[in-house]
């Protein structure tokens, strides 16, 4: 992956100098969905996240990709938005029945076959 352009707005301004997300529930694949709350008064990055997630759920990794921001910075923003009620987290729902070794094996096989 080629080095991104050096961003004009540096991350410390984007997060207001904070590096620790207010809640520690996010990883790359955590899904967040918009709650439809009005995004007025938010910073441009947060508004973009809110707009991206308005009609469905996106993972933290995808949001970071769209905004061209580091994942860790994105987590700070997303957790702010969850706090302010603009986003709601969707922890990946486990399958209906508890996982078994065979299922995991099948998942692995499936992934290998496709990637």
């Amino acid at each position: 992956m080629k080095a991104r352009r050096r961003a004009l707005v540096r991350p410390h301004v984007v997060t207001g100098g904070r590096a620790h997300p207010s809640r520690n529930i996010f990883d790359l694949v955590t899904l967040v969905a918009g709650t439809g709350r009005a995004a007025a008064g938010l910073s441009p990055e947060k508004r973009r996240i809110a707009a991206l997630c308005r009609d469905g759920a996106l993972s933290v990794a995808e949001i970071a990709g769209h905004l061209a921001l580091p994942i860790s910075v994105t987590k700070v923003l997303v957790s702010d938005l969850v706090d302010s009620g603009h986003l709601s987290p969707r922890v990946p729902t486990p399958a209906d029945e508890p996982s078994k070794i065979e299922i995991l094996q099948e998942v692995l096989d499936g992934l290998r076959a496709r990637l």
Partner: protein
Amino acid sequence: MDHTLLTAALACLAAGLAAVAVLLLRQRQITARLRRRNDALAYEMRLREDELRHLVTTRLPALAEVPRDQPVTVPGPLHRRPGRADELQPVLDLAADLVARARTQAEQSATATLRAMMRAVQSLANEQQVAISAMQERHDDPAVLEDLLRIDHMNAQLGRRAQATAVLSGSWPGQQRSASSLTDVVRGATSRIRDYLRVRVTSEVGVAVVSRAVEPVVLALAELLDNAARHSQPSTPVEVNFQQAHNGVAIMIDDAGVAMDGEDLERATRTLTGRRRADVHALGDPPQVGFAVTGLLAARYGFSVSVDTRSPYGGVRAVVFLPTALLTRLPAETAPVPAAPEPPDRTRTTPGGLVKRRRVSAAPAEQGGPAPARPGRPARDVAAGMGAWQRGTRSGRATAPPDSDPPASEGENSRP
């Protein structure tokens, strides 16, 4: 006979005496004239000596000490005599010329050295920023990120200082940027000052700055913001507002510090409008960089800066006016609506109550998308779905985000 002889002798004597008397009288007159002349010459000599001493001890040193950018005023000759020109003026003129030439040469070489050194510092700061950005991408640990943010912040300030010095020594700001929204330009400037947390951007306008003016405007704004933050209490905000006018946009920076008094204001105005020379040799001590850089950039890129109004909070209001020539509109970048329209049959949740994911613009269509969701999905479907999901995540990260630019990032180091 005797009598005759005596008479003749007497007559001769009388004639001789008369001649001697005449001679004596003449001699006396000549002597007096010579003495007068001698006195005059001695006087003249003394005058010249005085004049020469005056030249060496007073006039020439005064000439050498004339501050730069001021008209050469040197004390005149000691004695002015009517009808006679100052014979030493040519000496003085020659010396003045030599002083000026030596000064110019010294300044030129110092400026060139400074410019070259600043170019090196700038490109190092740029490289470091790339490295920091890469680390920010790579590390997911908030503690590491915190340190990286701090380093990034310091590096941004370092880069700004180097850039400002380079501009003062006659360089261009360098870096190519793509056209950026005014809000981003102000926040970009905010990124580069120490007290960035105090800057508040309250309003917003839908215009952007054209590519070639982004970096200079960012640099000028950064200097003004830094000035504003530096000259006001640490607890007060520095507020940025935009005001759209019919031939441009005004960016207003208000601080709650102390207003400038008349003399400062006058000097600042002259610097900002380019009426006062601004380069590395004319900054004073301690150097007053901010206004000088801003004035230079404004003159070079065709925007204007003024600081002669008061802010509503009692401090200074700096106004940067960007004419229409430097403004543009960003194509659709501000429109945050995701591109792909949703097929009508999809709802936001699956029948099983799971959230349905939407693909937003970036990812290309995939072969074998997620299996249609049914209640009680079999394990294979779950696996297929997860596989697709992971691919999506990966491609979402790998694909260039919609607003990023073609690889202008290489070779964007400082340019002379």
